């Protein structure tokens, strides 16, 4: 039994009044002259048994009356009384993650979940309190009709959402309700990856996982251009999840770049030198299946001519050798557009700048940096052995380095650190490294990542037009992303645009490639794809998931009716106020009858 207004139970103390009156009857203080008292005495003697029984009956009726009124005032809820269900606070978590678009039994799972949600809301009463929470964690409240309208508006999301957060919000929402019955009702496809990290809720929980097995899925798990900037040659690597052979197509812009077939565990690798130039959108497509959401994956790349590079002698022999290798591989061209030189010898930007070979040249180097507008200066030399941190340069040993000191307000990125201090920094037209490219200062020139790193630096940081982002930004639908400074607009490959309000903003929900525009020019790209784990449609068993999310008392169902029943059965206590008031009226009538019409048996 639970009570909506338990404070009224304090009125129960009044039950002592009839008891007290009954026990104190013999201590009446009022005296009344009544000459026929002898008849009264005789009446009590002749009818003592019936009078005693009647007094007991009256006392019981009055005690019961007080109890019934007290309980009615406290607005109790009892199991098994009345019809329907008691007022219940229900937070409905409707899983609209992208995995629910999988077709099972001829229709998308989401349609079945939405129908079940509609059925649940329709089964509610005006006394219930309902909220709808979708997988993005958004909470909607309101009347039954308003929620039905909201359900009609809910569409499958483009991503996985955050069902763990949605469940936590649902739990906290119902916990804040004052209604006696509170439950979280979850309608989900039961995808195993969706519920990783979800905490067990303290409320009751009713779970719906529709029957049926997930479809056999083929998915493009990843697709990326290597490197992000093709000059103009590069590779596209895609990873596909499939149990058998499947046909694929690679598209750049509107042009099909390649077609083919791949099998289980075989990555798709395409090396190409396409004629397009600038930022391009592409995608890898598979033949459609019952889960079409992951049949295509988008990628973006920048295509341009190979950067013309020259390595100055001041940069060291290792730099010159690496540049020669890149030129030989076609990823760079001989020319003076980009220079690799020490700071005291670099004459123009763009350039990869190293410290001077002689410490006495440090002053000249810093003056040259100032002249070129580079907002960094070489500081004191550090000769302690440290390792670098940052991308490809992780774990590279550094034994001698100059501290990089900001000059004024430095803009740009720190590409790597050493000893916790900036070691490689980049900005418009420059990449500055704190150590000479010499094994006596750092192991970088003799490490395998050196040449690819140098290729990336040339292509992404130095060959790109001034202010260009360089590499595409990978994003999940609706999740926060950081845009480059000065970004003004996002433009999809279909031409639709969105204004950029801040550097940190939520990525578009719509999957695809969104070009970053600044001054009307494409300076980068945001690639929005569903998380690859959404392609893993393996499900929880409903009871196991219910136990995980709601503990051993949580209920699970595979049908709409069962789910609705479970939801309101958790609050199966029904309002008992009216039956108690009826009981109180009956007791009043019985008491009046006993007082007025009950005649004792004549002795």
């Amino acid at each position, binding site marked *: 039994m639970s009570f909506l207004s338990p404070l009224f139970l304090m009125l129960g103390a009044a039950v002592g009044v009839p008891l007290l009156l009954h026990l104190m*009857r*013999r201590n*009446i*203080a*009022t*005296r*009344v*002259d*009544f*000459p*026929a*008292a*002898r*008849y*009264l*005495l*005789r*009446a*009590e003697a*002749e*009818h003592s048994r*019936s*009078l005693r029984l*009647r*007094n007991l009956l*009256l006392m019981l009726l009055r005690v019961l009356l007080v109890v019934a009124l007290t309980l009615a005032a406290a607005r109790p809820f009892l199991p098994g009384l009345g019809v329907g269900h008691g007022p219940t606070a229900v937070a409905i978590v409707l899983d609209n993650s992208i995995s629910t678009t999988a077709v099972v039994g001829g229709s998308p799972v989401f349609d079945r979940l939405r129908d079940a949600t509609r059925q649940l809301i329709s089964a509610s009463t005006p006394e219930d309190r309902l909220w709808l929470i979708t997988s993005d964690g958004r909470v909607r409240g309101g009347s039954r009709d308003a929620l039905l309208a909201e359900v009609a508006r809910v569409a499958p999301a483009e991503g996985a959402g955050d069902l763990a957060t949605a469940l936590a919000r649902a739990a906290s929402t119902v916990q804040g309700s004052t209604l006696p019955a509170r439950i979280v009702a979850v309608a989900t496809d039961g995808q195993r990856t969706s519920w990783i990290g979800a905490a067990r809720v303290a409320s009751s929980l009713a779970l719906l996982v529709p029957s049926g097995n997930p479809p056999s899925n083929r998915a493009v798990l990843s697709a990326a251009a290597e490197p992000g900037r093709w000059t103009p040659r590069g590779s596209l690597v895609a990873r596909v999840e499939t149990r058998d052979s499947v046909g694929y197509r690679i598209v750049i812009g509107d042009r099909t770049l390649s077609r083919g077939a791949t099998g289980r565990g075989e990555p798709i690798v395409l090396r190409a030198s396409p004629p397009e130039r600038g930022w391009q959108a592409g995608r890898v497509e598979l033949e459609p299946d019952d889960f079409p959401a992951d049949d295509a994956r988008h990628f973006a790349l920048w295509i341009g001519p190979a950067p013309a590079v020259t390595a100055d002698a001041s940069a060291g022999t290792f730099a010159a050798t690496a540049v020669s290798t890149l030129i030989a591989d076609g990823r760079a061209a001989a020319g003076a557009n980009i220079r690799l030189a020490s700071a005291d010898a670099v004459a123009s930007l763009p350039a990869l700048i190293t410290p001077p070979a002689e410490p006495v040249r440090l002053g000249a180097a810093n003056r040259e940096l100032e002249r070129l507008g580079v907002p960094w200066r070489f500081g004191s030399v550090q000769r302690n052995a440290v390792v670098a941190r940052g991308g490809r340069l992780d774990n590279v040993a550094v034994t001698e380095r100059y501290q990089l000191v900001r000059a004024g307000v430095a803009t740009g990125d720190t590409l790597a650190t050493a000893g916790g201090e900036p070691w490689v920094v980049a900005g418009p037209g420059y990449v500055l490294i704190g150590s000479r490219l010499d094994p006596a200062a750092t192991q970088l020139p003799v490490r395998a990542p050196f040449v690819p790193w140098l290729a990336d630096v040339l292509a992404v940081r130095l060959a790109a037009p001034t202010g260009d982002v360089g590499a595409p930004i990978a994003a999940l639908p609706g999740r926060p992303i950081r845009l480059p400074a000065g970004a003004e607009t996002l433009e999809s490959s279909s031409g639709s645009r969105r204004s950029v309000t801040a550097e940190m903003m939520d990525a578009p929900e719509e999957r695809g490639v969104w070009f970053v525009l600044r001054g009307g020019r494409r300076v980068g790209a945001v690639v929005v794809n569903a998380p690859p784990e959404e392609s893993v449609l393996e499900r929880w068993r409903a009871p196991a998931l219910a136990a995980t999310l709601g503990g051993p008392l949580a209920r699970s169902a595979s049908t709409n009716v069962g789910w609705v029943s479970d939801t309101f059965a958790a609050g199966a206590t029904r309002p008992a106020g009216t039956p108690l008031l009826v009981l109180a009226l009956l007791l009043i009538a019985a008491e009046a009858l006993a*007082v007025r019409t*009950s*005649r*004792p048996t*004549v002795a």
Partner: protein
Amino acid sequence: MESTRVPRADLFDPAALSALGHFEIVARWIVDGFLSGLHRSPRKGFSVEFADFRPYQPGDDLRYVDWKIAARADRWVVKQYEEETNLRATIILDVSRSMDWRSASEEPRLTKRAYAEQLTAALALLLLRQRDAVGLIRFDDAVRTSISPRARSGQWRRLVAALAEPGNGRASDLAAALGQAARLVTRRGMVILVSDLLVDVDAVMPAMRGLRAAGHDVNVLHVMDPAERDFTLAGEARYTDPESELDVPAAAADVRAAYRTTVDNVIAEWKERLGALGAGYEVILTDQPYAIPLRLAFGARERRS
């Protein structure tokens, strides 16, 4: 001939009637009203003696017109006769403390004693007007007043004066009063007992039996307040008998039904045991008009005659 209908005082509410004047006057109104309500004149029959003339009134029996006077004086008169009587009535009035009680009610109500005294006065006057000899015995825990039955003109004054005397003894020695009545009335006569009968019935019955054995016609008027009859009091209290100090705690609503049953039993017992002796018995409630007990007593007198 136009008749004038005069309100009959014997049908008035007793309390309202008592407020109009001294009970001696009120008694006259009651008796006048009572007599005017009788359908037949009591002054006729074989055993009557001439008493007076009065002017003829339409409706008078022509048999009693004095034709000699009509012929001689051209004036129509009718002869009036007095009935000879040998009835000796004794009224025994209970004036104990239990009689000096009335229940609280919305309507003004007389105490049982006030009602009984007014009834006694009216009854005595009625009998005296019938030329009967009327005596009075007042008692509480002892006989307070004892007036032998007389039919003289001053008897009414004596009776009225006696009714004004105090009483209110703590008990009711009814047996002694009945014994005193037996000694006062040597010839066979009528004894009318006016009491609330809050006495032990077994203690009274021998005296009753003695009166009946002496040939007296005994009539008992059991005076009760309506609250004593139906226990219409309310609330929880200690109900105390002012005479015996008997103290009974009770909730009126709880015990009312049982009380009524008990009072029914008591009345039935009195009626049965007095009836077995050939004595009359009636319950008189203090909110009833005096006509009711008067008619009962007068009926008994008529039967006796």
